Protein backbone atom coordinates (compact mmCIF):
# COMPACT_ATOMS: atom_id res chain seq x y z
CA UNK A 1 0.00 0.00 0.00
CA UNK A 2 1.47 3.36 -1.02
CA UNK A 3 1.50 6.41 1.25
CA UNK A 4 -1.31 8.00 -0.76
CA UNK A 5 -3.46 4.85 -0.45
CA UNK A 6 -2.73 4.73 3.28
CA UNK A 7 -3.82 8.35 3.66
CA UNK A 8 -7.08 7.65 1.83
CA UNK A 9 -7.70 4.40 3.70
CA UNK A 10 -10.80 4.32 5.92
CA UNK A 11 -8.48 3.35 8.77
CA UNK A 12 -6.52 6.60 8.47
CA UNK A 13 -8.27 8.24 11.42
CA UNK A 14 -6.41 11.28 12.67
CA UNK A 15 -7.26 12.98 15.93
CA UNK A 16 -10.90 12.09 15.70
CA UNK A 17 -13.08 12.37 18.75
CA UNK A 18 -14.07 8.77 19.17
CA UNK A 19 -15.70 7.70 22.41
CA UNK A 20 -14.30 4.46 23.87
CA UNK A 21 -17.09 2.40 22.35
CA UNK A 22 -15.98 -0.97 23.70
CA UNK A 23 -15.78 0.46 27.22
CA UNK A 24 -19.19 2.18 26.96
CA UNK A 25 -21.08 -0.83 25.59
CA UNK A 26 -19.17 -3.30 27.78
CA UNK A 27 -20.09 -1.24 30.83
CA UNK A 28 -23.75 -1.25 29.79
CA UNK A 29 -23.72 -5.04 29.30
CA UNK A 30 -22.03 -5.53 32.67
CA UNK A 31 -24.60 -3.33 34.41
CA UNK A 32 -27.49 -5.19 32.78
CA UNK A 33 -26.04 -8.53 33.81
CA UNK A 34 -25.47 -7.26 37.35
CA UNK A 35 -29.08 -6.09 37.61
CA UNK A 36 -30.23 -9.45 36.32
CA UNK A 37 -28.08 -11.35 38.83
CA UNK A 38 -29.53 -9.22 41.65
CA UNK A 39 -33.08 -9.87 40.44
CA UNK A 40 -32.61 -13.59 39.78
CA UNK A 41 -33.23 -14.87 43.35
CA UNK A 42 -36.31 -12.63 43.66
CA UNK A 43 -37.96 -13.26 40.30
CA UNK A 44 -36.51 -15.29 37.42
CA UNK A 45 -38.87 -13.81 34.83
CA UNK A 46 -37.91 -10.27 35.84
CA UNK A 47 -34.24 -11.24 35.68
CA UNK A 48 -34.33 -12.44 32.07
CA UNK A 49 -36.72 -9.64 31.10
CA UNK A 50 -34.04 -7.22 32.33
CA UNK A 51 -31.35 -8.90 30.24
CA UNK A 52 -33.55 -8.91 27.13
CA UNK A 53 -34.60 -5.26 27.57
CA UNK A 54 -31.03 -4.15 28.11
CA UNK A 55 -29.71 -6.09 25.16
CA UNK A 56 -32.42 -4.73 22.85
CA UNK A 57 -30.94 -1.31 23.61
CA UNK A 58 -27.24 -2.24 23.56
CA UNK A 59 -27.07 -4.33 20.37
CA UNK A 60 -28.59 -1.77 17.91
CA UNK A 61 -26.63 1.08 19.54
CA UNK A 62 -23.37 -0.84 19.21
CA UNK A 63 -24.13 -1.59 15.55
CA UNK A 64 -24.86 2.11 14.95
CA UNK A 65 -21.62 3.18 16.66
CA UNK A 66 -19.66 0.64 14.61
CA UNK A 67 -21.12 2.02 11.38
CA UNK A 68 -20.64 5.69 12.34
CA UNK A 69 -16.91 5.42 12.99
CA UNK A 70 -16.02 3.36 9.94
CA UNK A 71 -14.82 6.50 8.15
CA UNK A 72 -13.43 9.78 9.42
CA UNK A 73 -12.18 13.09 8.09
CA UNK A 74 -13.29 15.74 5.62
CA UNK A 75 -12.10 13.65 2.66
CA UNK A 76 -14.72 11.05 3.60
CA UNK A 77 -17.57 13.40 4.55
CA UNK A 78 -19.89 11.79 2.00
CA UNK A 79 -19.02 8.27 3.21
CA UNK A 80 -19.46 9.38 6.83
CA UNK A 81 -22.95 10.73 6.08
CA UNK A 82 -23.81 7.56 4.14
CA UNK A 83 -22.61 5.29 6.94
CA UNK A 84 -24.67 7.38 9.39
CA UNK A 85 -27.79 6.73 7.33
CA UNK A 86 -26.93 3.04 6.95
CA UNK A 87 -26.26 2.72 10.67
CA UNK A 88 -29.48 4.44 11.64
CA UNK A 89 -31.66 2.38 9.31
CA UNK A 90 -29.91 -0.77 10.55
CA UNK A 91 -30.51 0.30 14.13
CA UNK A 92 -34.19 0.94 13.47
CA UNK A 93 -34.71 -2.41 11.75
CA UNK A 94 -32.70 -4.29 14.40
CA UNK A 95 -34.76 -2.71 17.19
CA UNK A 96 -38.04 -3.61 15.47
CA UNK A 97 -36.88 -7.20 14.88
CA UNK A 98 -35.60 -7.68 18.43
CA UNK A 99 -38.79 -6.31 20.01
CA UNK A 100 -40.93 -8.38 17.63
CA UNK A 101 -38.94 -11.56 18.30
CA UNK A 102 -39.09 -10.97 22.05
CA UNK A 103 -42.84 -10.42 22.20
CA UNK A 104 -43.55 -13.25 19.76
CA UNK A 105 -41.21 -15.89 21.17
CA UNK A 106 -40.52 -15.22 24.86
CA UNK A 107 -43.24 -16.34 27.25
CA UNK A 108 -43.72 -15.50 30.11
CA UNK A 109 -42.36 -11.97 30.06
CA UNK A 110 -42.55 -9.00 32.41
CA UNK A 111 -43.18 -6.23 29.90
CA UNK A 112 -42.86 -3.42 32.43
CA UNK A 113 -39.42 -4.64 33.55
CA UNK A 114 -38.36 -5.10 29.92
CA UNK A 115 -39.27 -1.51 29.01
CA UNK A 116 -37.74 -0.21 32.24
CA UNK A 117 -34.42 -1.94 31.45
CA UNK A 118 -34.60 -0.68 27.86
CA UNK A 119 -35.17 2.91 29.00
CA UNK A 120 -32.50 2.69 31.70
CA UNK A 121 -29.85 1.45 29.26
CA UNK A 122 -30.88 4.07 26.70
CA UNK A 123 -30.51 6.84 29.30
CA UNK A 124 -27.21 5.37 30.45
CA UNK A 125 -26.00 5.37 26.85
CA UNK A 126 -26.91 9.05 26.43
CA UNK A 127 -25.25 9.96 29.75
CA UNK A 128 -22.05 8.04 28.96
CA UNK A 129 -21.78 9.51 25.46
CA UNK A 130 -22.42 13.03 26.76
CA UNK A 131 -19.85 12.49 29.52
CA UNK A 132 -17.18 11.39 27.05
CA UNK A 133 -18.18 14.22 24.72
CA UNK A 134 -17.73 16.77 27.49
CA UNK A 135 -14.46 15.15 28.50
CA UNK A 136 -13.19 15.46 24.92
CA UNK A 137 -14.15 19.17 24.89
CA UNK A 138 -11.97 19.80 27.94
CA UNK A 139 -8.90 18.25 26.28
Amino acid at each position, binding site marked *: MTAEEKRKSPRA*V*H*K*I*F*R*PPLLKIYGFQCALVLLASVILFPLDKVAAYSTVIGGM*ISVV*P*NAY*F*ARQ*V*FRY*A*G*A*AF*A*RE*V*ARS*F*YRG*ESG*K*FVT*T*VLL*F*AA*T*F*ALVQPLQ*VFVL*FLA*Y*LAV*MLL*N*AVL*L*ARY*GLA*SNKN
Partner: protein
Amino acid sequence: MGLALIAVALMIGFGALGTAIGFAILGGKLLEGSARQPELAPMLQGKMFLIAGLLDAVPMIGVGIAMYVLFVVVPGLPA
Protein backbone atom coordinates in the same frame (compact mmCIF):
# COMPACT_ATOMS: atom_id res chain seq x y z
CA MET B 1 -58.46 -4.67 16.30
CA GLY B 2 -58.37 -2.51 13.20
CA LEU B 3 -57.75 0.59 15.28
CA ALA B 4 -54.89 -1.14 17.12
CA LEU B 5 -53.23 -1.99 13.80
CA ILE B 6 -53.66 1.61 12.60
CA ALA B 7 -52.10 2.78 15.88
CA VAL B 8 -49.12 0.46 15.31
CA ALA B 9 -48.71 1.70 11.75
CA LEU B 10 -48.82 5.33 12.92
CA MET B 11 -46.31 4.73 15.72
CA ILE B 12 -43.79 3.00 13.46
CA GLY B 13 -44.42 5.27 10.48
CA PHE B 14 -44.18 8.58 12.30
CA GLY B 15 -41.27 7.30 14.39
CA ALA B 16 -39.35 6.45 11.24
CA LEU B 17 -40.37 9.75 9.62
CA GLY B 18 -39.19 11.83 12.59
CA THR B 19 -35.88 9.98 12.74
CA ALA B 20 -35.42 10.30 8.99
CA ILE B 21 -36.03 14.06 9.02
CA GLY B 22 -33.68 14.54 11.97
CA PHE B 23 -30.94 12.46 10.36
CA ALA B 24 -31.36 14.16 7.01
CA ILE B 25 -30.84 17.55 8.66
CA LEU B 26 -27.90 16.23 10.70
CA GLY B 27 -26.24 14.65 7.64
CA GLY B 28 -26.78 17.75 5.53
CA LYS B 29 -25.24 19.97 8.21
CA LEU B 30 -22.29 17.58 8.56
CA LEU B 31 -21.57 17.78 4.82
CA GLU B 32 -22.00 21.56 4.89
CA GLY B 33 -19.76 21.98 7.93
CA SER B 34 -17.10 19.65 6.52
CA ALA B 35 -17.09 21.57 3.24
CA ARG B 36 -16.74 24.93 5.01
CA GLN B 37 -14.10 23.87 7.54
CA PRO B 38 -12.54 20.52 6.64
CA GLU B 39 -10.26 20.60 9.69
CA LEU B 40 -13.33 20.40 11.96
CA ALA B 41 -14.79 17.34 10.21
CA PRO B 42 -13.68 14.72 12.80
CA MET B 43 -14.97 16.86 15.65
CA LEU B 44 -18.27 17.39 13.85
CA GLN B 45 -18.55 13.64 13.34
CA GLY B 46 -18.16 13.00 17.05
CA LYS B 47 -20.72 15.66 17.94
CA MET B 48 -23.10 14.25 15.36
CA PHE B 49 -22.78 10.84 16.98
CA LEU B 50 -23.71 12.31 20.36
CA ILE B 51 -26.75 14.11 18.96
CA ALA B 52 -27.80 11.04 16.96
CA GLY B 53 -27.90 9.03 20.19
CA LEU B 54 -30.41 11.49 21.64
CA LEU B 55 -32.34 12.03 18.42
CA ASP B 56 -33.71 8.53 17.99
CA ALA B 57 -34.34 7.69 21.65
CA VAL B 58 -38.02 8.64 21.67
CA PRO B 59 -38.93 7.02 18.30
CA MET B 60 -37.27 3.79 19.46
CA ILE B 61 -39.46 3.73 22.57
CA GLY B 62 -42.45 4.23 20.26
CA VAL B 63 -41.30 1.28 18.17
CA GLY B 64 -41.08 -0.88 21.29
CA ILE B 65 -44.60 0.08 22.35
CA ALA B 66 -45.85 -0.55 18.81
CA MET B 67 -44.37 -4.06 18.86
CA TYR B 68 -45.97 -4.66 22.25
CA VAL B 69 -49.36 -3.63 20.88
CA LEU B 70 -48.88 -5.73 17.75
CA PHE B 71 -47.71 -8.95 19.41
CA VAL B 72 -49.32 -8.83 22.86
CA VAL B 73 -52.41 -6.60 22.75
CA VAL B 74 -53.77 -7.37 19.26
CA PRO B 75 -53.75 -11.21 19.59
CA GLY B 76 -55.84 -10.80 22.77
CA LEU B 77 -58.46 -8.64 21.07
CA PRO B 78 -61.61 -10.20 19.61
CA ALA B 79 -61.50 -10.19 15.79
